[in-house]
């Protein structure tokens, strides 16, 4: 549908108020495949912004490269579509220049944990106040289905025609291991709870990572005979365990399951505040 924005003063089209308010509707419908979960995650980000009444001029969305990273073109706030793997590096610069801004990174599993793996762990270690939302579809979708660091062991990709011999990363655990003070996991099936989790991540002072399992029926699904988008979302429904319940379960029962919810939420000194304290101390004479 071609939308002429010049004469539109209010929402008279078949578009919900949330989407009309937060998306660049002239770029919709988006480029993502039928059944791709990324649109669901992006809607949850918009819902979190609406719930928090975030000022869009003080909100920055930073993305890298990949299917996920098209998000920066769709969400109507300050946004920048950066180079592969470097979204967190750009976001770090933005946060240091504007510590009062909410800086949100939307990235994919490959962008965050392969090409940008170092940026992820060091931003987590510093505890800089970014919110990193990973659209984790377990494959490189945009470039044609190559296996990524989150493709499960012995599953298939165009570059793993006989099965993947690597072990996968768990991005939430990786970030926690590197010192992230907020980490959560969710899925696109859990869309009704997702906006709330993203809101918690944005409100958290310090580095937040939200690993959202998306669905890629086009590449990951087809390569691994996971069925349609509906089948893949049903799998998420049947194989997710809330973190509160998982605490009392033995490890072998959690094998191959997704533990969803807030995995860690703790306080620690935030990097841009620490930097500002240092600047004040040096300019005023170190005491």
């Amino acid at each position, binding site marked *: *549908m071609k939308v002429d924005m010049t004469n539109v003063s209010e929402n008279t*089209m*078949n*578009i*919900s108020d949330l*989407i009309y308010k937060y*998306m660049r509707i002239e770029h*919709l*419908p*988006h480029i*993502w*495949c*039928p*059944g*791709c*979960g*990324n*649109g*669901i995650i992006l*809607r*949850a980000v918009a819902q979190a912004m609406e719930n928090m009444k975030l000022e869009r001029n003080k909100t920055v969305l930073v993305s890298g490269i990949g299917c996920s990273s098209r998000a920066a073109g769709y969400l109507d706030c300050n946004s920048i579509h950066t180079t592969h793997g470097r979204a967190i590096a750009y976001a770090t610069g933005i946060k240091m220049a504007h510590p009062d801004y909410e800086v949100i990174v939307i990235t994919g599993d490959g962008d965050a944990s392969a090409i940008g793996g170092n940026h992820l762990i060091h931003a987590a270690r510093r505890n800089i106040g970014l919110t990193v939302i990973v659209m984790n579809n377990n494959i490189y979708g945009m470039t044609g289905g190559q296996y990524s660091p989150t493709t499960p062991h012995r599953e298939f990709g165009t570059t793993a025609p006989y099965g993947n011999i690597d072990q996968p990363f768990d991005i939430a655990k990786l970030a926690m291991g590197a010192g992230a003070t907020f980490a959560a996991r969710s899925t*696109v*099936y859990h*869309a*009704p709870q997702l906006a709330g989790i993203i809101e918690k991540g944005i409100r958290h002072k310090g580095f937040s990572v939200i690993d959202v399992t998306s669905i890629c*029926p086009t590449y990951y699904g087809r390569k691994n005979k996971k069925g*349609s*988008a*509906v089948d893949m*979302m*049903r799998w998420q429904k049947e194989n997710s365990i809330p973190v509160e319940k998982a605490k009392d379960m033995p490890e072998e029962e959690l094998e191959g399951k997704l533990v969803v919810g807030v995995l860690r939420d703790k306080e620690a000194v935030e990097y841009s505040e620490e930097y500002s304290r240092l600047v004040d101390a040096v300019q005023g004479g170190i005491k």
Partner: protein
Amino acid sequence: MSKKLVINTDWCKGCGICAAFCPKSTLEVVDEKVRRKDGADCILCGMCEMRCPDYAIYIKEEDDD
């Protein structure tokens, strides 16, 4: 305020997620587009809106006048 279900068929890509997860099974996909089943009892819960990847289905609130 009253509520109604709105479908934007221009944006619907026919993935079927809304129909599969509708708690009252009120939706169906025909020719790659979603539509309401005849006589279906929609409870306006909004689950379809939250899970639609394409923003093609939603609950609209309208002023009564």
